[in-house]
Structures are given as structure tokens and as C-alpha cells.
């Protein structure tokens, strides 16, 4: 099976600091791939490279098996890649509908087609069984953390995307809201999307992930099937970059 998204040999530096070293990463349709790693391992940076926010220094970026160049968020969106960023990036002064359509508004002649956007947003939230927002004309500033996360995810789903990447979607959420978001994540994959989930919580990871990719100090330590590894092996990969046969060989940067 061809992965929807495949990265090979990605390098990325900020000035003199190299944050990603020769990173390989794949994501398959219908699967949840967990991307794990310690604070500062480079997870968010990798995601921003995928999303066209940061240009990559070198390496191959393949989408559905074909090499592509993603130089802006628009390029990524056109391919069908949607990202829910760690810092969410919603506009507090706009309502839910406006946020969901931002950058891709529907128009009726020269003016915005508010009613059709509202209807579609409504349908999308309904299809995700979202029941917690009072009105989709509510300003985003009035939403709770979980509701904001839901809006961001719904925004990503609205566009018939093929890949949805979520950067720590449950980090700030309580138990009930976390369960809801994870359920949403699983449902996206079951609908045939390739889902990438970044999380520090091993319970969350094992609850929904089919594959696990572990970054260690900007290097991909291992990408394995979730069923083939244990909690403690993944924790070892995160903290030391290796676990028995798995992982990096003594800092050489070569992946098993």
C-alpha cells in the first residue's frame, strides 16, 4: 500500500541550529499514526514543514507516491493536508463558521455567502456528532478549550482532506473532553483519512494509534506498528532513542 504522505531524509535548521536530521515519516489512509517524542524533539517543526509553514532544507516530500513541493499553507491545503496546530491559531474575534471557512470563504458574487457556509459548517459539526456548542455564530473567544479544539478539527474535516494532522489536541483537556477528541480522531481514520496524532500521553497513543513514530533529538528513532511494541518500549524510544533492537544505533542517526 502506498502511503498517502511520505517524507524521506528531511533536514531542517533554524540558523545554526539543526532541528531535524534525515527524518523519514509515513502516514497511511485509514490509520492513525502517532508521532511521539520528548519536548523539543522536533514534532511541531516536522508538522510545520509538512504544512508548508517552514520550508525544508533538503529531503523528499511525497504525496500519494508522487514528489511534491509544498511552499505555503495553501499548497498543503490544495493537496488535502489539514493541520490542527498545537497553538490552534483561531481568530477570537470571528465566529465558528467564519473560522472554519477562513481563507476559503464561499462567495455569492462579490459578497460572502454566509447562509451556505453556515449550513455546511452545521452539517460538518453534526457529522462529527459535536453536541457541545450552543450556536455556530458564537465568537470563538467564548468557547472552552475542548470546544476550540473541536472547531479546529471540524475545520480540518470540512475540506474533504486526505491527511489530518493534530498537534497535541488533548494536552489541555479534561478527561471527558479528551475521550471525545480521541473518539473523533478514530472516527476520522475509520472514514478513510490518514490521521497523524501528536501526543505525550501513552494511554492516548495506545488507545487510538495503529502506528507509532518516535522522534529523538530531531532524528526518527523508529516507526513501528502499535501492536508490535509495549508502553515501556515506546517510552524508552522517546527518552533514549533506542529500545533493544529498535531505534538509533549509538547516535549515528541510522534508523533500523
Amino acid at each position, binding site marked *: 500500500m502506498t502511503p498517502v504522505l511520505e517524507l524521506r531524509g528531511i533536514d531542517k535548521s533554524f540558523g545554526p541550529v539543526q532541528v531535524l536530521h534525515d527524518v523519514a515519516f509515513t502516514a497511511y489512509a485509514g490509520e492513525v499514526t502517532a508521532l511521539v517524542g520528548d519536548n523539543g524533539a522536533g514534532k511541531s517543526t516536522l508538522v510545520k514543514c509538512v*504544512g508548508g*509553514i517552514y520550508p525544508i532544507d533538503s529531503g523528499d516530500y511525497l504525496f500519494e507516491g508522487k514528489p511534491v513541493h509544498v511552499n*505555503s*499553507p*495553501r499548497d498543503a*491545503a490544495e493537496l488535502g493536508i489539514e*493541520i490542527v*496546530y498545537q*497553538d*490552534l*491559531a*483561531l*481568530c*477570537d*474575534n*470571528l*465566529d465558528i463558521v*467564519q473560522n472554519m471557512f*477562513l*481563507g*476559503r*470563504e464561499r*462567495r455569492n458574487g*462579490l*459578497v*460572502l455567502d*454566509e*447562509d451556505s457556509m*453556515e*449550513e455546511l459548517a*452545521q*452539517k460538518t*459539526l*453534526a457529522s462529527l*456528532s*459535536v*453536541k*457541545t*456548542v*450552543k*450556536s*455556530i*455564530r*458564537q465568537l470563538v*473567544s*467564548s468557547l472552552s478549550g475542548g470546544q476550540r479544539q473541536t472547531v479546529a478539527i471540524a475545520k480540518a474535516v470540512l475540506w474533504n482532506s486526505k491527511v489530518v494532522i493534530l498537534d497535541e489536541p488533548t494536552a489541555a483537556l479534561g478527561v471527558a473532553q479528551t475521550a471525545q477528541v480521541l473518539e473523533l480522531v478514530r472516527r476520522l481514520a475509520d472514514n478513510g483519512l490518514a490521521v497523524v496524532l501528536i501526543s505525550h500521553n501513552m494511554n492516548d497513543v495506545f488507545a487510538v494509534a495503529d502506528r507509532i513514530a518516535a522522534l529523538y533529538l530531531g532524528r526518527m528513532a523508529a516507526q513501528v506498528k502499535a501492536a508490535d511494541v509495549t508502553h515501556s518500549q515506546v517510552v524508552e524510544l522517546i527518552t533514549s532513542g533506542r529500545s533493544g533492537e529498535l531505534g538509533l544505533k549509538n547516535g549515528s542517526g541510522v534508523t533500523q
Partner: protein
Amino acid sequence: MTDLASRPAQAPEAGARRRRAIGAQRLSDATILLLLIGMIAAFSVLTPAGTFLSLSNFESVLLTASQLLILSCGTTFLLIAGGLDLSIGAVTVFSAVVVAKVMGALAGTAAQAADFQYPNLAVAVAAAVGGGLAVGLGWGVLNGVLAVRTRIPPFIATLATGGIVLGLASVWTDGQNVQNVPLPFQTGFGLGKLFGVVPWPIVIAAVVTAVSWVLLAKTRFGLHTYAMGANLEAARRAGIDVGRHMVLLYAGMGALCGLVAIIDVGRFGTASITSHSGDGLAAIAAVVIGGTSLFGGRGRISGTIVGALIPAVLQSGFVIMDVQPFWQNVAVGVVLLVAVYVDQVKIRAQTRA
């Protein structure tokens, strides 16, 4: 809490919900409108019948407000997007110099002008109007590129370009007002009326205001302006070309300065070097009084209209009451302080919620 998902989407209901949400926001803007109405009522009572409250005074108030209103429309967009332009007075002066010089030079020879003969009037007016708009636009683009590329805060960048532009205008004219504006331009346009009823400057201000209103409230361009002011990074990630949008906003502001320059030359028959130094701050004051946030993300043209009318109403009222019109500045300053204070209280209430 209603269960949103289980309720079928209905278009009419959708519209009603949106209107309700917008209505709630408008309510807070009503305060400043009440203030304006209060001022008008007070002056109407305090002045002799048929002076303040008369059609001719109404017209003269609008005429006074027209130029400030045009500049304030551009400033509303800029402030909402998180920009700021302090150079607009200077750009207006520079554009006015271009308008007056081009028109005077092309309309006819000095001897002909002395006899009020302008053989090339049409060409001269067309060139001057085009030149004034183009020069304003050009300075606006420069401001925009500076703000976007250099990341010098716009407060400093436009303070500096304002100084440069006004300096260049003064050097060019030796600090003297530019005369020789063809008389028919003044009588036909600056003092002229559409259908003999509505003065041209008021017509132009009304058109600019209407276009700004629709652009800001109803179009993608307006929505992106709001988005940028609230969260620039979110706007960028949504695929909005925020740099281009910002340059467009500054460019539009510059073009509006050019437009105001054309009106100014038409009304007063001269390009004045000194009389617009306060325009930038006056426009910002009007816009902020009208409820636009200095911190970006919030504001409306309806508020800006009210904010731009207040100084003109005060001035007219004070003149008719024989009070020193300088009190207008004092009053506007007080209103500005109150408006900003109320704005900050609103923001604090919001972040607490």
C-alpha cells in the same frame, strides 16, 4: 444548552441567528451614537432657532466632516488589521501639491491664467486628479512595504515617512502654499454641487463610506482584515497572503489621501502646506471614538461615521454659540479618552470571560 447537531439546518433560521449575533455587538456601538445625538440636541436647544438646526448648517457640517470621514474609512481598515498610518496628513499635503502644480502648469500659460482663460482645462484636471491619486497610492505602497518587509513598527515607520514626505513637499514649494489653481475647478467641483443640490465633496465621501462599509462587512477582503488583526499567524496559516493584504491596505490609505487632496484643492483653491499636519491623529481619534480597537480585530464603519461627525458638529455648535471653536479640540480629546477607556474595559471583560 440546545443540541445543535440534531436540529436540521434551515437557511432562514441561519440568517436570523447571524443577525441576532451581530445585533448584540451593535448594541455597544449605540452609546457613541447616543452621544452624537445628545450633542446635536443640546446645540439645537442652546442656539437660536434656524441656526444650528437648519439644512444649510447640516450641509456645512457634512462638508467639514467629508475629508476627515474619507481618511477615517481607510484608517478603520488599517487599525482593524493591526496597522497604523501617521503619515496620512503629510501624504495628503504632498498629493495636494502635485494636484495644484500639475493643474496650474497644464491648464494654460501664466498670461492666460491671469485672464482666467484655461484652454487645456480638461486635460489639466484629468492629469492632476490622476497624478494626485497615483502619488498618494505610491506613498501608501511605500508605507505598506516598510511595515511588512522591515518589521519596523508602523508607528515609527509612518512617523518617519510622514516627516520625509512633508519635508519633501515643503522643500519643493519653499514652504509656500501653491496657488494658480484654475478657478473653474474650484467653482465647478470644490464648491459645486451634484444636480445643484449635494456638494461634490459630500457625494464623494458618501460613496467612499458606502464602498468601505460593504467591503468591510460583506466581503472576503473585509473578513481577512478582521482575521489579521486578531491573529496574524492564524490568518497566515489559513492561506491568506497577509503581506500582500497589508500592503493593499496601506496603498488604499494612500490613494484616499490623494482623493482628499483633490477635494482640498478644489474647496480652497490652493495646496496648503501647513493645514493638514493633524489629519493623521484626527482620523485615528475619530476611528477609535467610533469603537474601533487600537489593538486590532474590532471595528465598524458605522462607528467611524459617528466618530468623524463629532468634531464637525462640535465645531459648528461652538462657532454658532460664539464659543471659541478651539474648545472642539478639548472636547474631542475628552471623548477620545473615554472611548479608549471603555474599549479597554470591554477587552478586560472579554479576556476574563
